[in-house]
């Protein structure tokens, strides 16, 4: 039984190839990311499948999935917007953007809109402070220099 698509498995195999043959566990972070990209979030079955694919204990993969905070262990909206609220971004106006996002979407941080379209999250430093306020869309795309207007435009584009 395969739980991930052939494309996802091919990507995982590419990641495994980076490490010594007896170190497949090294690819677990990438494999969980790839699985999450496909599934939207990481159900326990998915984590167990990834662990088995890499030949590691399921609980060890679960440790990884719960340790790094970009993995989602419960369903999220189609579009996850993670706003950095750390100090440099805060100084550059992240609080205002956060309030705007919450008002606009009618949800708080850590919540999902009833239509399942957006999830709003608060993030830690993304390593691009000079461009703040900034957010990540679905973990992988950064939007910088946010203003209420650019936020509105972004939200509109995320169908």
């Amino acid at each position, binding site marked *: 039984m395969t739980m991930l698509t052939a494309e996802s498995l091919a990507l995982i195999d590419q990641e495994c190839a980076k*490490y010594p043959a007896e*170190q497949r566990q090294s*690819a677990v972070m990438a494999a969980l990311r790839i699985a999450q990209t496909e599934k939207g979030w990481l159900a326990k079955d998915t984590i167990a499948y990834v662990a088995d694919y890499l030949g590691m204990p399921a609980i*060890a993969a679960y440790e990884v999935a719960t*340790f790094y905070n970009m993995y989602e262990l419960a369903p999220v909206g189609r579009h996850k917007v993670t706003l950095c609220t750390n*100090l440099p971004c*805060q*100084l550059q106006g992240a609080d205002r953007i956060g309030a705007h996002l919450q008002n606009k979407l009618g949800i708080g941080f850590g919540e999902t809109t009833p239509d399942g379209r957006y999830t709003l999250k608060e993030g830690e430093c993304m390593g691009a402070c000079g461009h703040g306020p900034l957010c*990540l869309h679905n973990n992988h795309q950064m939007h910088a220099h946010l203003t209420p207007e650019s936020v509105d435009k972004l939200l509109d584009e995320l169908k």
Partner: protein
Amino acid sequence: MSLNTPDTQVCLWTLGYDNPASLATYTANGGYEALKKILAEKTPAEAIIEQVKISALRGRGGAGFPTGLKWSFMPRTFPGDKYVVCNTDEGEPGTFKDRDIVRFNPHQLIEGMLIAGYTLGAKAGYNYIHGEIFEQYQSWEVALNEARAAGLLGKDILGSGWDFDLHAHHGYGAYICGEETALLESIEGKKGQPRFKPPFPASYGLYGKPTTINNTETLASIPWILRHGGQAFLELGKPNNGGAKIFSISGHVNKPGNYEIPLGTPFPDLLEMAGGVRNGHKLKAVIPGGSSAPVLPAEVMMGLTLDFDAIAKAGSMLGSGAVIVMDETVCMVKALERLSYFYFEESCGQCTPCREGTGWLYRIIQRIEHGQGRPADLDELLRIGNNIGGRTICALGDAAVGPVASFVKHFRKEFEYHIENKRCMVNH
């Protein structure tokens, strides 16, 4: 500041060109020549390390450890595999320089890692890239493929008979992986929890093999040093503080961004380059080396030069060169609340003082910020800080304490006002 040129700038000079990240831009300006020379002449490792030592290059990730010395710790005669690891897990609030190196000058980093791999006898290298900059993880893979296609990576590099490969490992949201041994654990597919030291990575690193870990900017400086000589690099900066360094300036300035300037540049010059304090406000405080560095009041900061030794003397640290500027509108209690939340949230949970202490610190500061402070709280914060600092496996414990102790030390009146009046002194 002068124009971006490969002579006066070490890492970000490609910004002066179209397609800054391309192999063509890099090679057209002397890129990979240092590597070619080393491979052609079979330069002994000792000679390379000697140049790095002369350059007085100090680790750009925050600790400022002399790079040449670190390289000399690698066991030469070790018979098994060895590794070189680049730390691009840049998550220290205020720091965003390594992202720009990967983004705008990846080949210099690749060349730096190749030279490190050659010098240290490594069989492979990994670049650990911060989780939130997936786009740089992808762009780095593009650069690696470009290098591979040009025969610069893989088997028999440039016909020299030497094999070496580089890969990217992508983080996924854990500040602690910027700590070098947590980073190694993470590459091994585990939770990023720091290892106790000794043993140090040079003897027991990735997969238990000797490993050298350097910051992105450090490794990217290596080709420059070997091309121009260690002495030239040293002369860019000042004694014991060799080179130019990227300063990431953020917060209340008009032009936040990265400025690659010689070590020893006076802080007011950097502030001026960044367009000065925004909206003509008055400077209140500066965190000079990333969020873990103790905060310094404006009057102290304005008299400092930006180098490891001067800032250390003033009671803070140059760290990663991340300069967070705060103007007079900032409530220091609120600022500290956010920083202490960060360390609480990012503590890996492994060792007791940090796991338990960071939450305790945060909760007290949160109470003060929300008008529920008590007169004994400030001394209690310092007491708790003393029980964390110096007693943890890694430096995150100290990093969590640094801001607390320095904010209370320099801005105690503001905290006391919060406690007594249950509101902010700055923003009523």
